[in-house]
């Protein structure tokens, strides 16, 4: 872009009022600024990668020691009930922290992973994520419906994480209901596929519809199914990386609906 600018300055046809007057020194100064910005961006990316690596390895290793030695201590048959209870709390806290670290890494990866776009059937991803939720929580009765033909273009791995986070959210906030009900529908509008993930769970206050998509913003405590507050932020980031937008809607009849758009597959 800068070379075109320099070229333009030498071209007499370009020397009218619409072309700003830049001296060679100005251009050189701009070039230096641009180089400095690029170097800073590269350094920030490197720092982010180092940070993610630090979290992944150096934070999880001591956590594994806490959880494992607490598990070994809890296996001692001679423990007093109170002590056993305390050790179980240590283990439960370690498990929660492990989940939080996993989610932080997923959030970081969703932001920096190189996109590998492919044609993806969202319906298959919904069935896959649904099967995983059923396996993890087999006592829950669940109906998960998905429209056929939800073919989009995107990074298959990240879209799997997106679907997983939205289904997991719907599942968690349906815990006060007799059974989990999730419906995934889609409609094509021009080149975009508009997808809605609807549940019949506890819903939320529409005043917080934007806030709840930000990292660490929780609307519900753990007893209502609240987690680490990163699931929807991860989903939001993945949709944004695909040039779309995620929006949350509280439904009048109870429950929530999450809408997002992705590039539609041709003819889909």
């Amino acid at each position, binding site marked *: 872009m800068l070379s075109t600018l320099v070229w333009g300055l030498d071209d007499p046809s370009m020397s009218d009022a619409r072309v700003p007057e830049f001296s060679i020194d100005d251009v050189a100064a701009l070039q230096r600024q641009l180089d400095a910005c690029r170097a800073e961006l590269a350094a920030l990316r490197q720092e982010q990668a180092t940070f993610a690596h630090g979290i992944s*390895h150096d934070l*999880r*290793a001591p956590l*594994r020691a806490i*959880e494992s030695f607490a598990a*070994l201590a809890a296996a001692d048959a001679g423990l007093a009930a109170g002590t056993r209870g305390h050790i179980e709390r240590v283990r439960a806290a*370690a498990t929660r922290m492990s989940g939080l670290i996993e989610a932080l890494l997923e959030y970081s990866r969703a932001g920096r992973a190189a996109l590998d776009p492919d044609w993806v059937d969202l319906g298959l991803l919904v069935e896959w994520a649904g099967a995983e939720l059923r396996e993890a929580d087999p006592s829950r009765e669940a109906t998960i419906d998905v429209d056929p033909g939800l073919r989009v273009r995107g990074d298959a791995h990240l879209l799997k994480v997106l679907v997983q986070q939205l289904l997991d959210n719907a599942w968690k906030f349906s815990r006060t209901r007799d059974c989990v009900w999730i419906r995934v529908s889609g409609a094509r509008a021009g080149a975009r596929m508009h997808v809605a993930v609807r549940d019949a769970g506890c819903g939320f206050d529409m005043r917080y519809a934007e806030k709840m998509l930000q990292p660490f913003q929780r609307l519900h405590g753990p007893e209502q199914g609240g987690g680490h507050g990163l699931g929807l932020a991860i989903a939001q980031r993945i949709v944004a990386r695909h040039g779309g937008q995620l929006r949350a809607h509280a439904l009048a009849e109870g429950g929530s609906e999450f809408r997002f758009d992705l590039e539609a597959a041709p003819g889909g």
Partner: protein
Amino acid sequence: MPTDTLPADRTPRDTSHREILLVEDNPDDIELTRIAFGEAKIANELTVVHDGAEALDYLFARGAYAGRDPHHLPSIVLLDLNLPKVDGREVLQAIRDNPLTRSLPVVVMTTSAEPFDVEASYALGVNSYIQKPVDFERFVWAVKQVGLYWLVLNQPREGG
């Protein structure tokens, strides 16, 4: 591994007497791995080296291990990636570059599941990559699966 690359006169060998080489610098992880092998009833001797340089000295019978027979290789190497001095990736590279150890089974057992680390390890020819689970029961289960596969089920190449 294609069996037609093996010498015709090879005989199946019992590997239960061959040791497991654990390359790990964290004392907590060393202790937990010992306990996990115990709980998984894997009786092979566990040799522990604490950094990448020591791992290579051991395998190639150099330095403090100069008296060792370099042809006597462990049945399996459990390799952490983040190690002092020479890191796990460099250890793996050195193992794959040396004809003596080229086909030695190496399992990366590490805390990281960063796609970059997984990619790099497979590119360097690791046999298996396992993220150590935080949950102790799952860690014991993982160690047991590794032991069963590499020490019992898998047929090693003669001479490692």
